[in-house]
């Protein structure tokens, strides 16, 4: 604890090994159940991965994937900016907080999918609707985490910065918001998961776009291998994107991740 200049690890070693083990066991079980035909309609892992490869080779995967990911990235970025700005305003001004709290609470509690038809009616059959759904899903979580983080940030640090000559605005952004960083980032991580959910649910509702459209085409044909192939792509996508957010978190907020 007291060694000067001790290096901090980016990823914990032990838990990572266990995670890998858990994953390998799960995949092996999947392969076994599929290969032994224990459940008649359930395809093996290699059949599903084979289908993913086939789809990619035929070029059927690329276009929906690009469509979905583009919407996801745009929707997520809008959610991040809106969530952090509005969440910060809610933390700073009790009037803003009072005015918006009803909507935020409602969106947190109610199933967001209820509002998808409304957005569809408003924006029609366009990626605009899909992006709006993603924002609807993701922004509220980012907003709430930001609000709580900034509201709960230490006022002692703000005082400290002020005492050494920082203006109130500079002290707020460079010390208060910065110290709220880890909690804001955990909102961003939650928001990423929600964004993927929003992406897929929005596409499912409209069913002519992206990965969900591909999924729907297999659903009609009871093609479980195809459905699972799309599922694997979506899951891998979600994990990759969460890992990117998590990596940013460790780079920016490593100080908060080590035990105090």
């Amino acid at each position, binding site marked *: 604890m007291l060694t*000067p*200049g*001790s290096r901090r690890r980016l990823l914990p070693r032990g838990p990572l090994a266990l995670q890998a083990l858990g994953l390998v066991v799960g995949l092996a079980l999947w392969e076994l159940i599929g290969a032994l035909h224990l459940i008649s309609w359930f395809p093996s892992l290699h059949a599903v991965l084979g289908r993913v490869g086939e789809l990619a080779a035929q070029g059927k995967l690329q276009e929906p994937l690009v469509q979905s990911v583009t919407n996801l990235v745009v929707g997520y970025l809008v959610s991040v900016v809106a969530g952090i700005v509005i969440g910060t305003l809610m933390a700073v001004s009790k009037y803003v907080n009072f005015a918006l709290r009803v909507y935020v609470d409602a969106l947190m509690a109610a199933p967001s999918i209820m509002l998808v038809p409304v957005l569809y009616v408003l924006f029609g059959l366009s990626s605009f609707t899909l992006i709006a759904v993603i924002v609807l899903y993701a922004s509220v979580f980012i907003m709430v985490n930001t609000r709580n983080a900034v509201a709960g940030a230490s006022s002692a640090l703000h*005082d400290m910065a002020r005492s050494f*000559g*920082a203006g109130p605005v500079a002290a707020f952004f460079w010390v208060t918001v910065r110290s709220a960083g880890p909690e804001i980032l955990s909102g961003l991580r939650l928001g990423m998961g929600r964004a993927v959910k929003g992406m897929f649910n929005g596409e499912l509702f409209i069913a002519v776009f992206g990965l969900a459209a591909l999924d729907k085409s297999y659903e009609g044909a009871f093609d479980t291998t195809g459905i699972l192939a799309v599922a694997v792509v979506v899951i891998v996508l979600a994990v990759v994107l969460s890992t990117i957010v998590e990596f940013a978190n460790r780079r920016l907020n490593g*100080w908060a991740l080590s*035990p105090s």
Partner: protein
Amino acid sequence: MSTDVAVRVSGLAKSFVRETRGRASVVPVLGDVTFEIARAEFVSIVGPSGCGKTSLLRSVAGLLDVDAGTIEVDGKAVTGPGRERAVVFQDFALLPWASSLDNVAFGLKLQGVGRAERRRRARAALEMVGLDGFADALPHELSGGMRQRVGIARALSVDPDVLLMDEPFGSLDEITRRSMQEELLRIWERDKKTVLFITHSVEEALFLSDRVLVMGGKPGRVVETLTPELPRPRTRSQESSEAFTSMRDKIWETLAC
């Protein structure tokens, strides 16, 4: 005459508005606080918690607007934070993401000191508090005592005329606390800064100070002033001297009522 006075507080009053179940009430916290601190004098304020000590220190630091009264430092009225004052905070107030060196240099950075110069001065300040080997350590890698050494180094590095310390050792264990008191006196003997030191420990106040102001009452004010005329440099054996114990008893009597 007036040049010998570093801090002059007169008729200071402050109330807070408190909201309980939607109802606002005005709570007076400081009522007519008046005292002076001479240049290079070490003055402590003792008082029970909640009597307004932190509010008083924040007012002198320029972090809190007062309702009535005046505060002058170096003959100038205090209207906000200023370079001639530096604060040491009770809970250290270190940036958790910054190394010891960057924490110490933070004050210098805000005052516009260039990078090379502020690193040099921050290193010197870290050395002064005995933390030369820990420049790269983050706050959570340091013990409580070491964290407050960083806090003290940060305040010293900007070379203020007046050091404002709000229960700086209040959250440290007894053993660390005593060694930090001795360390603080050692640093103070070197270049005697004017110190306003807040504590709720009577012994700490007597051991460190030239003068002890006792705060009490609601709203808080200075109810007693004592001058522990113990020779410097102070030693622990003085704590069992007649002068020390009788003054301690006197303060306890004052605080009891």
